[in-house]
Each structure stands twice: as C-alpha cells, then as structure tokens.
C-alpha cells in the first residue's frame, strides 16, 4: 500500500513519508517537518496553540482585571461562558468551510479575523466590553476543526488517531501555557515600570501578535492536501467541487456525529471550563500568589503535551487489535474515569491533594479527547468537515452548559461545582454505548450479520446513484478500502466481498 509516485497528469510527486492510495502518510514522524504532511502538522498545531493562548489569556490575569473593570462574579462567569460559546457555531461553520474551501484558507482567515478581538482586549473598560472581546476571541477556537480536518486529510487510518491526538493535544497546550505566560509577561511589564492596571493591557499584545504571525505562516507554507491546494486541484479537474447542501445534509443526518458531539462536550468542554476557572479557584481557595496559582493551573493544560496524544495512540493501538470496537471501549472507559477523578477533585480540601488529583483528572479527560478523534475520521468521508465541526462544536456546548449551570455567579461554591461537573461527565459518557457501525460493530454488538456489511456500503451510502454515475465518489471508495484496518485482527481472516463495483472511469 505504499505508492511514492502519483498518477495525475500534472507533475510526478515524491513524498518524504510512505503514503497510501490517497497519498496520505501512513507513518507519523514527529521531528520531521517535511512537506506536505509533517509541515501541515506543525503549522496546524502551532496556530491552534496560539488561538488557545489568546482565548484563555484573560483567566490567569482575572484577579487584576476584575479590580480594574469592577467585575462581579456574575460578570466573570458570563464572560467565561461567552468565551466558549462563540466557537459552537464557528466550529460547525468551519467544518463546512474546510469541506468546501480547504483547511488552509479557512483557518488562516478565521485566525486573522479574530486577531482584532485580542488587540481590543487591551482597551476594554467595562464588564460589557470585556464580555464582548472574550466572545469574539473565542471564535478562534474553531481552528481546532481545521486542524483535525487537515490531519485527517494528510494522515491515513493507522496513524490518524496519533496525528489528530498530537496536533490537538499540543494545540490545547496553549490553554495551560497561557496560565504561565500571561502572569510572567504581566510581571515583566509591571517591573519595567507600568502600573498594574496598564501592565495587563500591554501583556495582551503578545498573544495577539503570535496569533497574527501563525496565520501568515499557514498562508505562506501550508497546503490543503498531499497533492496541492483545493483551488489548484479544482481548477485542474483533479478534485471535484462538492455541493454545500449535500455535504451538510449527510453530516447532520449521521446520528453518530450527534452522540460524539455530546460526549466530546464532557471531555473537551470540561477541559475548557477548567481552563476558565482553575486559576481563580486555587488563588481564592488556598490564598496563593497570582503566579503560583497560574503555575498550578498551567499544569492542568500542560498535561496535554502527552495525555491527549496518548489518547490518540491508545485509540490506534486498540484499533490494531480490536478494530473500531476497541476504539469505542477505550473512549468510554477513559472518559468515565475522568469523571470519577473530577468528583474527587471537588471533595479534597488540601492544596497538595488538590494538585495531585487535578493532574490525574487532566490526564484522563485529555486522553478522552484524543480517543474521540480516533473515532471521528471514520464517521463520514464526504462530510468529514461537518462531523468534525459538530463534534468540536459539541465540545464548546458542553463548556457553555457546564459553566452556566455550575460556575455562574455565587450559587454553588467552586468546589461543589467541580464535583457536580464530574457526575455530569459520567452520565453524559453513557451514550457511547449507542454508537454502531454496520461493518465494524459497536460496544456491545459485533458487525451486522443480516447482510454482509462492508466499508464500501457504509461510505458510498453518502452518494446518490446519480452522483456515483458521475464518478464523484472516487475519494470515498479509496477511503473505504483504506479503512478496512478498522476491523482489527479480523481483516486478515475475512475475504473481501466484491459487491461494490466502482464505476469504470478515470
């Protein structure tokens, strides 16, 4: 399955990594930046990291900002909700944009359009303006979808979980890194001579500039697919331009997308919530200094450097042995354990125990995020972007709901809120039991035995016979063939049925 020269009529291409029939890399070499695969990886995680840094730049400085802007706990809660609610629809829109225009243009546009919100944070002067800038900055979290889409376009089944996990994990790292970076930048500026209420404003230029520069890097160095950019491929006839309405329809009518959206809300959504509340929680509950609270809060997000990739790697490992069923079981188990540790975190009262439990909790919750995106690339081929967007958007809905219910105003103490959040995680992870692929099975059922279900049947069901007659489904066919690895060890013992005959053109 390793082809290193192409069959397009333009120019012959040689790739630095081994590739499959879609030219997606079948291996993942972390320390290479070879074009196009690994370069796309580095561009996507760095730009996503910068968006996370910007979105969560305010929380570690809240003890200063809340005094400067005269915020109440309700104002802070509202801004926290706003910061993650913008991305709910932005992620779905981004998914569609990726399907239609390609991840490179879609992500760079979003990043440059949200950079002004970060610059304007420096001049916020009231609770309302603070809420607005956090709302618009939060839109940039939709780059998650383009990053996952890009990885799913560049990397093949056996390594897609790993690629998605590392890209997203290292991007999410921004939520932790910012809790270290912002207090540090703030103290540097204050020590130079600025007064507290000015120093935090100047500090916001750092994430804003970083975000702007990463967008430039994507535009200059990135490309959408292993074979080139969408526009050029569409112009030369190598890629069919799909219809928005069909792409959107096939995405939203796939029930698995909705279930994953819900469960992602309770691993990633929880991660976003904790990014918003944890620094203040440690600062207020244990009377720590600002930058100590920042360091502890940072360790939550910093665990992403290994835990989310580990989730992706675990997903790929389970798939190798048990196929898609292994991926689903691992996801359910890890996410439920994350919920259990969240319950414990709200109960412990000492600083040391809180830190230890928080770190364990973070590992499980972030690994669950990595495991989710080991499943997502297989839910749909035609509407991969929409499914990624729905799942990603669901993550943000989870964050919005959790902050609204448990962390707004003064109704629950933060520790009670954390415990209740843990209970909600356990409950909202149960729907994974309902996910079923006819060709691979679900958690409790094996693959369909009523008729011989194949990968081709599943992926070609997204194309009408008229569309198949025009040959629009070729990419899905290739993908179906490549996805046979999701049968696990059975792939070698079962003969492949030949009832799916591709139309004879090109």
């Amino acid at each position, binding site marked *: 399955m390793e082809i290193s020269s192409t069959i397009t009529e333009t120019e012959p291409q040689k790739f630095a990594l081994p590739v499959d029939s879609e030219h997606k890399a079948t291996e993942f070499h972390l320390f290479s930046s070879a074009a196009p695969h690994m370069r796309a990886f580095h561009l996507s995680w760095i730009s996503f990291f910068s968006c996370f840094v910007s979105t969560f730049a305010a929380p570690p400085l809240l003890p200063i900002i809340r005094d400067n802007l005269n915020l109440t706990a309700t104002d802070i809660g509202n801004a926290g909700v706003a910061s993650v609610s913008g991305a709910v629809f932005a992620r779905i829109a981004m998914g569609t944009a990726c399907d239609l225009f390609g991840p490179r243009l879609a992500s760079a546009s979003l990043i440059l359009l949200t950079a002004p919100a970060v610059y304007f944070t420096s001049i916020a002067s009231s609770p309302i303006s603070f809420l607005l800038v956090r709302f618009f900055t939060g839109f940039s979290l939709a780059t998650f979808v383009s990053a996952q889409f890009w990885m799913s376009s560049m990397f093949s089944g056996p390594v897609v979980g790993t690629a998605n996990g590392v890209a997203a994990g290292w991007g999410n790292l921004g939520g932790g890194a910012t809790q270290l970076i912002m207090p540090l930048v703030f103290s540097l500026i204050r020590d130079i001579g600025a007064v507290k209420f000015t120093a935090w404003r100047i500090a916001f230029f750092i994430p804003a500039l970083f975000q702007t520069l990463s967008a430039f890097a994507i535009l200059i160095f990135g490309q959408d697919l292993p074979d080139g950019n969408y526009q050029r491929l569409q112009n030369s006839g190598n890629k069919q331009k799909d219809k928005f309405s069909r792409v959107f329809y096939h995405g939203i009518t796939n029930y698995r997308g909705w279930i994953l959206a819900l469960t992602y809300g309770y691993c990633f959504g929880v991660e976003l919530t904790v990014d918003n509340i944890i620094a203040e929680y440690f600062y207020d509950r244990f009377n720590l200094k600002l930058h100590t609270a920042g360091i502890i809060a940072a360790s939550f997000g910093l665990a992403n450097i290994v835990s989310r990739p580990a989730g992706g790697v675990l997903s790929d490992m389970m798939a190798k042995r048990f196929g898609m069923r292994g991926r689903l079981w691992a996801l359910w188990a890890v996410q439920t354990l994350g919920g259990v540790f969240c319950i414990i975190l709200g109960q412990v*009262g000492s600083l040391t125990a809180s830190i230890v439990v928080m770190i364990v909790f973070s590992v499980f919750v972030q690994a669950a995020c990595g495991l989710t995106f080991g499943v997502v690339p297989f839910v749909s081929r035609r509407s991969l972007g929409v499914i990624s967007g729905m799942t990603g958007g669901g993550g943000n809905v989870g964050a919005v709901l959790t902050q609204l219910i448990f962390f707004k105003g003064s109704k629950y103490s933060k520790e009670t809120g954390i415990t209740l959040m843990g209970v909600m995680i356990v409950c909202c992870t149960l729907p994974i039991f309902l996910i079923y692929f006819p060709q691979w099975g679900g958690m409790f059922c094996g693959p369909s035995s009523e008729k011989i279900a194949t990968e081709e049947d599943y992926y070609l069901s997204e194309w009408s016979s008229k569309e198949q007659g025009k040959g629009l489904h070729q990419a899905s066919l290739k993908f179906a063939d490549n996805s046979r690895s999701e049968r696990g060890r059975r792939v070698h013992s079962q003969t492949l049925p030949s009832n799916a005959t591709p139309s004879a053109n090109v």
Partner: protein
Amino acid sequence: MAATGLLLGLILVLGCFSEICVATISFSSLQTTLVVTVSHPRRLLRAGEDKITVRWGLNQSLPAGTDSAYKTIKVQLCYAPISQVDRAWRKTEEHLSKDKTCQFKIVKMPYTTGNQTLEWTIERDVPTATYFVRAYALDANDHEVAYGQNTDAKKTTNLFEIQAISGRHVSLDIASVCFSVFSIVSLMGFFFVEKRTGRKAQQ
C-alpha cells in the same frame, strides 16, 4: 515499594494537616479599643491623586494600661459591604487568616500612646469601590489583639468611594486599532495575491 507508598501517604496526610496549624484568631475575639477617624476632601476620591487623612488612637475612656500589649499598629483600607456583593474574593470571614475584607495596607508602624495622624495618597492600584478604614493593634508575636474602624459595627456610616485609574493610554488605543486593521488588510492582500496567481496558472 511499600516504603514509597508509605512516604507518599505520609506526605498527603501532612499536607492535609498543615492547614490546621496556622494561628486562628477570630475577629469577634478582638476588643474595640481604638478610635479611628478619616477625613477626605470630597466623597468620590481619585486613586493616585487624592489624599485621605487618618487619625487613630486609644479610646481615652478606657483604663490606662489597656494598650500595654500593643507593639505594632496596622492601618488598612477595607471594602464596605456594598462592594463585597457577588465578589467572593472580598468576603468577610470570622477567622482573620481567611478574612479578605481589608486588602490594602495604608501603614504598619510601631505603636505609640497618644493620637497619631497620617496623610496617605491613595495608591494607583486601588480598585473602584466603597471603603472604610480599620486599624489593628498587634502584639509582640504579630497577632491581632484589638482594632478600631472609622465606621460603625454594621459598616454603614462614614464610608467613602474611590474611583480607580482606567489603566488605558492613548498610545495603547492607537496601537490596538492599527494592528487590528493590519491583520484584516493583510488577509485581503493574501486573497488578492492567491486569486491573481490562480488566474495566471490557468492561462
């Protein structure tokens, strides 16, 4: 194996107990022996600009020797109840080590008998809120033993408001706008260049 487990358990247990060992002085155990008054030029004061004059001393109607244990005096700016609403980080707690009512130190100096006066310029990092002034008398171990405040026990009289600085500067405003415009314009520039090279490649 067992030894490391035991050590870890010991560290966790000690961590849990460390909270209890801090001295727990409660506010209601303090005697109200000091008299504090504050005068200010107007009701709404500006941080960084206006001054307040604080006067404190022992209540003269008390027997002599009441203040024999007082070694240091600590005068603080404290939040009035109206500025504590929906702000748990300014909450009043019984135990002084947990109390967050008074977060700004006006002065801390050795205690002397007789009345003292201090003119204090409001610092620039004081936030917008309603305040009163409280003075604590500390003993040789730096523990609070008595206090006095310029308002009544319910903290409703003689309060004053302070307006904080905004922290904004014209140069910051201009920089924000310029960089934002630059981001949008450069995006449009990229699109323009892409369309042009796309058209050229097709020709």
